[in-house]
């Protein structure tokens, strides 16, 4: 450790010169993946923008229609519903998984007997494929299933309804399994962040008479800034791409009541075969994700500067 520090401090000039000349290996490491990405990621993504300006059924060639698809989006009630549902999803799924994950991480950060078991238990749902998760939850929600049996057992029969088939409850009934899975994941991210906090900071705060709430507010949370950026990106991206669990449980139904932008995009593209219109929805999803994440990054950079 000391050796490294002394070298870097003694030879700053040589180091800078070396990094100015790019090593061919480094260039290869950047350019090869970039070339692959260009073909498999950037080019199709750019094509998506182009398709959003066309009418295309996937069989004949796309016909340019200008901004018609976006004009139609503006007046599409299903799209508005899906947008509102996506926002609800972002707030509930994102908010609750952060709160839940952070809470669990706080509770489970101390090494105690059996804590490993609880951590593993909370993380287990992450391991399952979401389609398997959906199957399990479908059994939970089905008529006379576990949910109904539980409600009956505590005398709340009046609440029983077709959870996934009732437009009032479908969206929330789908958020729950998604949360069940996401909390474990977010917990692991926060656990890693908590482990990285220098215990001396807490020690010092305690010496200064800070109570545990003050230490959480003024030591732990500011120290987690790096992790927060990761968690936020993960949450936003996961929310906007949430598709599998919704599709396996309700397909966005009944009558679009649990429709998200992602499921609406899929059904528009692959059921209605309106690939141009679906591309326009995809562009909206892209812009939303970018706006949220860029907004956060800009703020984060400004604070650092």
């Amino acid at each position, binding site marked *: 450790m000391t050796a490294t520090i002394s070298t870097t401090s003694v030879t700053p000039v040589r180091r800078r010169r070396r990094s100015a000349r790019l090593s061919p290996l480094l260039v290869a490491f950047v350019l090869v993946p970039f070339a692959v990405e260009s073909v498999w990621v950037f080019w199709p993504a750019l094509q998506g923008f182009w398709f959003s300006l066309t009418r295309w059924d996937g*069989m004949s060639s796309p016909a340019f229609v200008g901004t018609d698809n976006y004009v139609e989006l503006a007046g599409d009630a299903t799209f508005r519903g899906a947008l509102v549902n996506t926002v609800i999803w972002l707030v509930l799924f994102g908010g609750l998984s952060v709160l839940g994950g952070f809470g669990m991480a706080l509770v489970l950060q101390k090494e105690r007997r059996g804590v490993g078991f609880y951590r593993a238990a909370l993380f287990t749902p992450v391991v399952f*494929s979401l389609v398997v998760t959906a199957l399990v939850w479908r059994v939970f929600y089905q*008529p006379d299933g576990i949910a109904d049996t539980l409600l009956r057992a505590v005398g709340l029969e009046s609440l029983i309804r*077709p959870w996934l088939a009732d437009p009032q409850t479908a969206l929330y009934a789908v958020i729950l399994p998604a949360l069940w899975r996401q909390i474990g994941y977010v917990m692991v991210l926060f656990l890693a962040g908590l482990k990285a906090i220098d215990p001396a900071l807490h020690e010092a705060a305690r010496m200064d008479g800070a109570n545990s709430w003050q230490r959480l507010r003024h030591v732990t949370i500011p120290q987690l800034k790096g992790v927060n950026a990761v968690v936020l990106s993960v949450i936003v991206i996961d929310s906007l791409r949430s598709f*599998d669990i919704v599709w396996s449980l309700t397909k966005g139904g009944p009558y679009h009541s649990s429709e998200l932008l992602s499921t609406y995009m899929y*059904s528009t593209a692959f059921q209605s075969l309106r690939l141009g219109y679906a591309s326009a929805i995809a562009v909206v999803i892209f812009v939303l994700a970018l706006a949220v994440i860029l907004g956060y990054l800009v703020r984060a950079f400004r604070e650092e500067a």
Partner: protein
Amino acid sequence: MSDFDPGRRRFLGHLGLAGLGALGASSFLSACASSASGPATGSGSGAVTIQSNLSSPQAKAAMEKLIETFNKQGKGTASLNTIASETFRTQLPTYLTSANPPDLYTWYAGSVANDYASRDLLLDVSDVWKSLGDYPQSLRTLSTDASGKQIFVPMNNYWWGFFYRKSNFAKWGVQEPKTWTEFLAVCETLKSKGVPPIGIGLGDTPWVASAWFDYLNIRINGAQFHRELLAGKQRFDDPKVKAVFTRWREALPYFDPKGKAYPFQEATTALLAGKTGMFLIGTFFADAAPKDALGDLDFFRFPIIDPAVPLAEEAPTDGFFASAKTANPTGTRALLTYLASTEAQEAYVKASSGIVLPANPKAKASDSPLVAKGKAMLDEAKELTQFFNRDSSDALQPTADTALTKFIDKPDQIDAILREWQAGAEKVFKG
């Protein structure tokens, strides 16, 4: 299951598999499978590749047997490629438009096939039809595209009806109703005995509701109007369409409330267990039924509402079409001729357990009383329709699912629902 596809006769049968299909993972697999087998036909005389969506174990085995027999006959060679139904459905346009497509496909007759024909994607099989002189005119018309050439070779069809358990009807003391009034009376009797009279399964399989719409429409407005409506030549907010829903509303109180939440497979279980009285469904539902229950099953035709309307029944027809770009049209036509033969169709009916009627009029269907009754019902019909998506398009089906499930939940809002349906349909027709 992502069994959005209504017209299909064979189902995967398990909830999970479809979910996998929706994930897209399996479409990658199948894309690999098809690209591996597709180019095999490159040399004009190579094996004919047949893409099959008949993925239930018995149907798959039946197809394998047919292809094996064909290969032994020395008129050409063929190789079978079985693909999960949902994947097949989403991939079919890709197969047909690819540069080097597989030769032959299992698919459905009607406007779904004609749509591909109008894009010049299907092989002209009029030659094959020359040897099918004894096929009924209805099947010939069904297999003919707008330009007057045949593009489809039917294999078999099946029927829809109200299925029930004979023992249960006897226990409840009710008879098969013939008219709408009798039907409602039976419903009332069952309801008074504490049995939900009409089973349905809309959770995950909302397209099942389309059978109700199809039947009410062909009973009230006739098959001609129904086809025009589905082709975009009539409007869904027409008062004639509203009349369909006014009738339907009379039966709504008798629907099993749990039917909204579970798929048709579970609705089948409920029917067999006597938890519902009857169930409007296609014969494919029996694939999932235990063998000992089959003997106790019977059905009656959708009740007559207006005797003046010519009798029409839903008889979805399954069969084959071929790619226009096949490298081996001779071999493909030879295989189609074989598949349409009495011998092949009887072999298929025997090997597959489903309750189906062979398309070839000389081929014998299985000799169960149920099948005989189904055949008699279809023979008596003046007109045959296919099913909502087969008479329109897979793209129009989701608009029906939305409108019909919403109507079942909120029958008061029928005017708004029909306006939305018309708007949704216009978008689909516009493309």
